């Protein structure tokens, strides 16, 4: 027998559980959300304003076209995304401003890219990125890019292999490993560099090419910031030079001259490792960058026999020289812009904390004149499925 009091308590508990656990306070169903896949930030003509472009996914249009279903009409179906632009005083204000255009509330957890327009980036980005760091919806794993054109133009390009341009750009960055000629910087990395006293933030650089309806976006290198202001760009070669030092090389092709001098040989990077070693010699600060690389012979466009020991050794030497030149090119550019994109300052800080206290504030004067030794150890491991090239004996 259950006592009356406890029976009442049980019924109360069960009804509370049913009532309280059935839903959340501010639940939001999928069909009330505008899922943002990419955000662009531009500086409009009007001073002191922010222009924000978001790309919203239309889940209803995302499904693959049905086989043989030509009933959709000749229009070719609608785009599965919607690009909206709004202008306001602050980032958050502008995003909320979009409620006048979009009947669904913008939802940021699936925002994959943050594109900063060139003008906005030159002005300083701290004020734009604070919202993305502070709000609980956007993720710190979003990629940060600088658009050489305006960010809204980049988001309005056409994606061929993906349905949504923003997702296409995000995948473009994830596929950078094939060349290692584009940097990939998450919001978290960007903020880390932004908070560092000496290390300069970098971001992927994206450009729009083509005309009219056939515009496509492509990665063309790296944008370099001084403090939070855009300072300049690295081209593809310089970008790879930067990535060698940062230990972020995945793969890529190194073109070297044939030992005979009649054409090029392509060497594929298989793995690479690097280390930044600060050292004090004779009371002056030196930096050494040690790079270990392994490559394979990928293709040869000359008819020489590369299997001889001397030719193989020459290839290895040329390979090392190319890597060396790429790093030097990046270094030259960094010195010109006086931006410590490599994190040399942090490396010195970690190794010589006492010395660092003296030079920390003078690092801008130190950096351009810093002696950097680049030591490359490049190996060539395999020749592929054939040894000598295809030609009559």
């Amino acid at each position, binding site marked *: 027998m259950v006592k009356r009091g406890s029976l009442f308590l049980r019924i109360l508990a069960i009804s509370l559980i049913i009532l*309280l656990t059935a839903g959340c306070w501010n639940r939001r169903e999928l069909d009330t959300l505008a899922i943002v896949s990419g955000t662009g930030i531009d500086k409009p003509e009007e001073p002191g304003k922010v222009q924000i472009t978001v790309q919203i996914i239309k889940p209803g249009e995302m499904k693959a076209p049905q086989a043989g279903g030509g009933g959709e009409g000749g229009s070719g179906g609608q785009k599965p995304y919607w690009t909206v632009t709004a202008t306001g005083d602050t980032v958050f204000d502008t995003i909320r401003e979009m409620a006048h255009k979009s009947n669904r509330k913008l939802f940021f957890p699936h925002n994959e890219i943050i594109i900063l327009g060139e003008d906005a980036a030159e002005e300083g980005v701290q004020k734009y990125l604070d919202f993305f760091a502070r709000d609980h919806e956007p993720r710190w794993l979003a990629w940060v890019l600088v658009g050489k054109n305006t960010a809204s133009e980049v988001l309005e390009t056409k994606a061929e292999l993906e349905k949504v341009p923003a997702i296409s750009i995000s995948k473009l960055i994830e596929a950078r490993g094939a060349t290692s000629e584009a940097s990939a910087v998450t919001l978290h990395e960007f903020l880390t560099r932004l908070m560092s006293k000496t290390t300069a933030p970098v971001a992927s650089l994206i450009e729009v090419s083509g005309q009219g309806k056939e515009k496509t976006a492509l990665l063309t290198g790296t944008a370099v910031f001084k403090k939070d202001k855009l300072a300049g760009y690295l081209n593809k070669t310089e970008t790879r030079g930067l990535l060698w030092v940062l230990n972020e090389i995945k793969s890529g092709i190194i073109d070297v001259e044939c030992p005979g001098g009649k054409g090029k040989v392509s060497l594929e990077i298989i793995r690479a490792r690097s280390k930044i070693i600060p050292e004090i010699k004779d009371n002056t600060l030196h930096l050494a960058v040690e790079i270990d690389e392994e490559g394979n012979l990928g293709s040869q466009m000359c008819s020489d026999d590369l299997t001889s020991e001397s030719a193989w050794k020459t290839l290895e030497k040329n390979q090392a020289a190319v890597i060396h030149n790429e790093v030097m090119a990046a270094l030259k550019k960094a010195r010109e812009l006086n931006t410590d994109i490599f994190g040399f300052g942090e490396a010195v800080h970690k190794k010589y904390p006492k010395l660092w206290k003296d030079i920390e504030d003078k690092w801008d004067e130190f950096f351009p004149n810093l002696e950097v030794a680049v030591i490359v150890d490049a190996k060539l491991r395999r020749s592929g499925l054939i040894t000598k090239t295809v030609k009559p004996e």
Partner: protein
Amino acid sequence: MKLEGGKIAGSELVFLMIGFTLGSSLILSPAQAAKHDDWLAILAGLGEGLVFALIYTTLAVRFPGKTLIQFNDIIYGPYLGKIISLGYLWYFLQLGSLVLRNFGDFFTTIIYPETPMIVFIVLVALICASAVRNGIEVIARCSILLVVFTFVVIFGTAILLAKDMKFTNLLPVFDIPLREFIKASHSAATFPFGETVAFLMVIPFLKKVKEAKTSSIIALIMAAMLLVVVAVRDTAVLGITKTISTYPAYQAVRLIDVGKILTRLEILIAINLLSMGFLKIAVLYYGAVLGTAQLLKLRSYLPLVLPMGAFMVSLSTLQFGSNIENINFAQEIYPYYALPFQVGLPLISLLIAILRGVPKKMKGAKK
């Protein structure tokens, strides 16, 4: 007349104490002021905390079966003892309300910005009230399951984050001025290690009171190790952005991304806070309720559970206007405010007890 009939084993005390110490310090990393040296500051704070723990356990062993409230009367006499006991009851309640507040702030910041904070606080307080009604034995048994789960989460997230960790973020070791380091390590000693003073309400129910010392020391060391793992994980993953993160552990776990599949696991941190914070609040709540009953010489503490819970809930919503006020209080005032409760009074109590020779050692069987 016995207010609490339950008995706990030494191993249960270890788990309960680990859970209590992890409590909200899992999300509000202690010694955050020490930047990337916080793991060192936690270890230094552990040193200080172990001294505190020795004082508590010596007291507890000297007065076997007597809670803080009961032996205060013996040491200081019935009047002064009761005033000091009142101070402690306030401290337990306020600490419990602080942890409740952490709950509310955490959930309204990260997941439910539009839900009123009081909803979370009341829900958690109700669970704790139910635990307190069931007595210390139930709370202690819960702790085993919950602490083991937290173990798994801490190490699991550390493994999933392994590829994102940069241990060079921890360099250079000992980068902050000594003064700031001591300040940070002292704040780690008062939050969370010194808060184990609340266990003076729990240790009397140990099956073997002799185990109090070893159990407490083991528990504090293990909790500190877990906190160091968390601190190192967060610093290695977040780097300098840890210093501006409101909830570093949450921020770090948000960055888990293994092949785009194992991702968005941050809710694990909320579950950690929920389970460890529950243990902490339950112990403090229990201490306050049991202590009040003993102070007022009641026959049962059950009628006090809900009123004191209501007091704790209101206090938690009233004492701070914003999380920034809470952070400033925790960093600037709490390390000094907590001192008399955590070291001052226990140390004086121990000295007086030794000087006055209480309790009188009785030879042979009790007469």
